[in-house]
């Protein structure tokens, strides 16, 4: 098995390390760091907006670049968390808790270096685990039937909406909106047109890229404007890596030596689980580190372990999220949903057969992630002064770049003005969804997986002759059904118990 892995990785490296592959990997990693720097503009938006720029590239090279943007943003997002107490994206929120206090203590340099090392270790461990697990999971998934696939999609969406969202109802509604948009076009099973209103441009369905760019790109941008980011002056910060105080002390490395591994392991598991992802991984990583520390009172006041744990976790999680994407074809987050959309746009169908049918692509992507993490640690340390300079650019000058990329990109995909209007409408909806607590990520995930969910659900219905018994007759389906029920029922049960206790306390308080 080890020999297989080595030979597959050699094949992957021959693609990822080719001059073109390496060039676009560096571009993707650089763009990812820049995307991560701008608060409110996360990896999902970054990938969606930059998809049109990969036109004209080989599919493998295009995906290598887009994946570079995805995990590169995890590195970049922490720079603003540490320096200005503003996370570049949700997965780096936990890093502000100790990152910013470290900067306030005058230890911004060591904090930036340690986060880069933690990100590298987390990312690399994540990729090693992908190398080991993705082929095995793909083998295992080869025996999956429609009921298993439908349940994995349902579990993923429910976990995304119940674990990550502020409001479960709004999360579920967001997912259903995605399914509803996904039903526009020709029905794959009967060939009947649905919700096309006679428009020939809608026969092929609502193209996901325009919706994703609208929800994530324009929607996020409008929300940033709503919160007044465009009225804020640029942050003038200077950091030089030649300063002696820039580098971490021996004590920093010594104290964090186990934190790197714990954070990475927790993050990877969170990443593999559909729907949880890097944000949850980083929060759990931080909480566990604080819980097991002998001196938890130091956390939140500039403790290096409090920065290392979430950083290792969010990078391992971003790698972990690639496992279900590659081996099952099921993304677990908004960003990986956009990546899946890019896969499909390039004619690549992720799933158990992808590793068998297109090993060059899969192993090229995995090998590029090893190289990407090496490039990113070098960039994160030696190019920090350059990235800090990006914060000098006022947001008011960044807005037009994003708008032009979104609009021109959405039009250029199919030269369709209808799709460009879909982008504008999705932007307004994305803004409202973000403002009122809905989940644009759940909408995009459901839109991308909509046709697969419908097909697998109907196949299960037809095979079981309307009884849906496949959901409990097959062992994997049964386990997934139990998990699904637990996700639905446990929060309700906990709420009932909590309310019961509160009522008891109230009645005891009223008793004289």
């Amino acid at each position: 098995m080890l020999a297989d892995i080595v030979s597959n990785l050699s094949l992957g490296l021959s693609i990822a390390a080719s001059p073109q592959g390496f060039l676009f990997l560096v571009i993707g990693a650089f763009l990812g760091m820049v995307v991560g720097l701008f608060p409110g503009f996360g990896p999902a938006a970054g990938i969606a907006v930059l998809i049109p720029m990969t036109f004209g590239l080989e599919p493998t090279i295009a995906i290598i670049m887009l994946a570079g943007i995805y995990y590169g943003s995890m590195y970049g997002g922490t720079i603003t968390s540490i320096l200005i107490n503003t996370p570049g994206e949700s997965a780096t929120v936990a890093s502000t808790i100790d990152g910013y206090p470290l900067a306030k203590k005058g230890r911004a340099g060591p904090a930036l270096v340690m986060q880069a090392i933690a990100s590298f270790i987390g990312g690399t461990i994540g990729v090693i685990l992908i190398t080991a697990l993705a082929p095995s999971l793909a083998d295992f998934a080869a025996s999956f039937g429609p009921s298993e696939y439908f349940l994995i999609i349902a579990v993923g969406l429910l976990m995304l909406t119940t674990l990550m969202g502020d409001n479960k109802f709004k999360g579920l509604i967001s997912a259903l909106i995605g399914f509803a948009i996904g039903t526009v076009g020709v029905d794959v099973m009967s060939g009947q047109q649905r919700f096309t209103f006679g428009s020939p441009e809608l026969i092929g369905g609502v193209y996901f890229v325009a919706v994703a760019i609208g929800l994530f790109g324009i929607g996020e941008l409008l929300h940033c404007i709503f919160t007044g980011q465009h009225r804020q002056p640029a942050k003038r910060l200077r950091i030089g890596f030649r300063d002696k105080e820039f580098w971490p002390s021996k004590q920093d490395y010594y104290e964090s030596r186990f934190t790197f591994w714990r954070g990475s392991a927790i993050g990877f598991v969170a990443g593999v689980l559909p729907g949880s992802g890097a944000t949850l991984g980083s929060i759990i990583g931080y909480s566990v580190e604080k819980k097991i520390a002998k001196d938890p009172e130091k956390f939140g006041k500039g403790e290096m372990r409090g920065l290392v744990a979430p950083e290792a976790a969010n990078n391992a999680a971003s790698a972990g999220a690639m496992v279900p994407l590659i081996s099952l074809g099921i993304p677990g987050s908004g960003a990986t949903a956009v990546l899946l959309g890019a896969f499909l746009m390039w004619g690549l169908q992720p799933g158990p057969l992808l590793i068998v049918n297109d090993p060059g692509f899969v192993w090229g992507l995995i090998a590029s992630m090893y190289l990407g993490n090496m490039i990113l640690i070098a960039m994160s340390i030696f190019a920090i002064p350059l990235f800090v300079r990006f914060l000098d650019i006022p947001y008011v000058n960044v807005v037009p770049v994003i708008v032009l990329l979104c609009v021109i990109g959405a039009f250029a995909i199919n030269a369709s003005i209808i799709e460009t209007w879909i982008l504008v409408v999705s932007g307004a909806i994305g803004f409202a969804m973000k403002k009122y607590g809905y989940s644009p990520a759940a909408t995009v995930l459901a839109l991308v997986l909509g046709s697969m969910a419908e097909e697998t659900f109907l196949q299960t219905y037809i095979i079981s002759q309307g009884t849906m018994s496949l959901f409990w007759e097959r062992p994997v389906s049964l386990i997934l059904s139990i998990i699904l029920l637990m996700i639905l029922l446990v929060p309700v049960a906990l709420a009932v118990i909590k309310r019961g206790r509160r009522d008891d306390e109230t009645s005891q308080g009223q008793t004289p």
Partner: protein
Amino acid sequence: MKQWFAAGLLVLAVGYTLYGLSSLTLLTASGRPAAGFFPLMVGLLLIVLCSINLWGDVREWWSERPSSSAPATGGTVSALGVDLPAGEAGTGYSRDALIVFLYISGFVAIMNIAGALLAMIVFMLAFLFTFNRTQVIGNMIYSLVLPGFLYGLFRLLLNASLPTGPLGF
């Protein structure tokens, strides 16, 4: 506004379900699910959840309604580090967001008529001279250089199809 958005979603959910029911076949002659089966499930679930959601939002709005006898209170809200006066709490820079949205809509509307390059330049000029009035020369240069660069990138390097105007670009 939250309750209006929730109400809008409910109306759309009802419209989606009714249109699906009237235009799509639910079951085939042999009793198998047809094209309307899945949309009907999605539509009905949407109606139920949107109704509960609307009920919750209306109740929240009702309980948060300021009473007419309560005196106006001062205070600030924090939005990404920006302190807004209490009167603007909840509305933020909604006017700015609306202006940008209208500019984007205008940009898309004129793109097919004026061509991509000209539309980009007009959008940039409008945006920058609304939100960054002090930098006149800088705005002019930026409004020409960025669209020129992006037009060149998409049109020449990526060979993408972009709308052309009467001037041929």
